[in-house]
């Protein structure tokens, strides 16, 4: 793929100069810091907020699994927004501004152009997820008990895979439609539809929504069957591959 390394460097520089990396990094730091705190102090916050209105409600004492659940929930929600925002203008913006024609009038291949973008988006999401999970682990160790490092690394990996799926679907929308707004719409509709699919009993283990249960279980120290991890991982990987394949196929045929 001619020009991949040069374009990858350009993508990094662009994501930093246009503040995408710092903003996503900041958002994930916030997620990492607030999730264990929220899990630990949510019962007290609810009690304080309710005052004397709920004197008889006894809220359970928070445990490690609550922290893990909170981390996953926040990562999945805020991370999905970040993934969609990172990917929605990545190709359509360049088509719209005419900069894609500038790059592709050189010897850079269209494959390299897309791969550099996908690679950097995935890397930003990966680093941000690691940062958030690292901070959350540290805070959880302080507020609860030191959790399993391996389990939390698996959680980070599964969360990253899920975020990559939202980014890939949005990226496909950006490439196929050439419109940033349409790409964002496709990303959010996919998020909505696949979240609903994740609530259907037979389909729940498949797709990005199915990553939650094994991730939370492993990070909480529970033992689960390998197949329970493989089902969502493989189906999500296939979803990503299809989205990127459609994007590449469409971009190869596009007039600049």
């Amino acid at each position, binding site marked *: 793929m001619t020009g991949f390394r040069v374009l990858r460097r350009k993508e990094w520089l662009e994501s930093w*100069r246009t503040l995408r990396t710092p903003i996503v990094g900041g958002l994930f730091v916030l997620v990492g810091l607030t999730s264990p705190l929220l899990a630990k102090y949510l019962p007290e916050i609810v009690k304080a907020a309710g005052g004397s209105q709920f004197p008889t409600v006894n809220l359970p004492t928070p445990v490690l699994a609550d922290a893990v659940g909170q981390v996953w929930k926040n990562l999945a929600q805020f991370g999905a927004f970040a993934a969609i925002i990172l990917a929605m203008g990545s190709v359509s913006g360049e088509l719209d501004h005419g900069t894609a024609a500038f790059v592709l009038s050189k010897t*850079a291949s269209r494959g390299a152009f897309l791969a550099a973008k996908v690679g950097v988006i995935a890397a930003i999401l990966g680093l941000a997820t690691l940062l958030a999970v690292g901070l959350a682990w540290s805070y959880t160790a302080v507020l609860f008990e030191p959790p399993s490092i391996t389990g939390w690394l698996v959680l980070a990996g599964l969360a990253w895979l899920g975020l990559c799926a939202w980014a890939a679907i949005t990226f496909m929308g950006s490439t196929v439609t050439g419109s940033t707004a349409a790409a964002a719409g496709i990303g959010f509709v996919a998020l909505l539809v696949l979240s609903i699919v994740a609530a259907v009993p037979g389909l729940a283990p498949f797709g990005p929504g199915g990553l939650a249960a094994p991730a939370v279980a492993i990070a909480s120290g529970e033992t689960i069957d390998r197949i329970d991890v493989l089902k969502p991982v493989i189906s999500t990987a296939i979803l990503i591959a299809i989205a990127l394949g459609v994007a590449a196929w469409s971009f190869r045929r596009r007039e600049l």
Partner: protein
Amino acid sequence: MSGVAVCTRALTKRFGGDGGVLAVDCLDLDVPAGSVFGLLGPNGAGKTTTLRLITGLATPTSGTTTVDGTTVDSRDPGARHAIGVLDQDPRYYGWMTGRELVELAGRLQGLGETDARTRAAVVLEQVGLAEAARRRITGYSGGMRQRLGIAQALAARPSLLILDEPVSSLDPEGRRDLLALIADLRDRSTIIFSTHVLADVERICDRIAILDHGRLVTEGPLDELLARYALPLYRLDPEPGQAEAVATLVARIGALPWVDRVGEESGAIVVSVTDASVASAGLLPVVVESGVRLAAFERVRPDLEGVFLRLVGRDA
């Protein structure tokens, strides 16, 4: 340099399927290596589409293009290795500095990091952007962007330079400098450029192709085209204050059978005729009869504009 740098055969581009717009129609073009080749045509003639087909940014409906013997394929960037391109409306990354953009262009054309940096400094100096090289492009004026576009096109010492309307945003000084730069590149690079400024074409082009409705109307060296198509031209300068009489005279001249076109340009009457021998004897008596007083009457050298207007029948 010798031989043919760019060759198109039956090159056709239709937008929007079978019933769509035919932008380029069966174009056969040979651009000699080392020449400065002017591509002329009215708006919508297919100039930009032709240039995009040559660079591989657009895919032809049928036909072929070769650059230095390599067939252009929009999916294979190989043939673009030797091409420097300046788009009609150059848009670049606003967050980059001018120097970074030219370096990026050089790197994407296969230069090493050090070579790209050195070349960027050289070409930015050439186009007069050395002082602004470290500024973000978002703060550049239209003219500066045009100069930057030329710099990035020159970054990797291309053997083929494609310039689509390169002087459109430049002030007179910038235009003069660019034309001098293009003239300086003659023999080292083949240059194809499209423009609406016919005077620029006359000044620097070795060969000219005129397109209309996507078809090649004519092609050849400038002198040959002038000899083949230009009609004898007369210029009459009436003394001021005779507007009504001049208008009547213009109408009378236009009705003469040996007059091809007549028009007013900056107060002068310009007449192109089909037969110079008849016109030399017949034009002045018509003026005398009309009572219009002339400050000057001369036969002038035919120019490209006359050829252009005659061949395509409307302005560039």
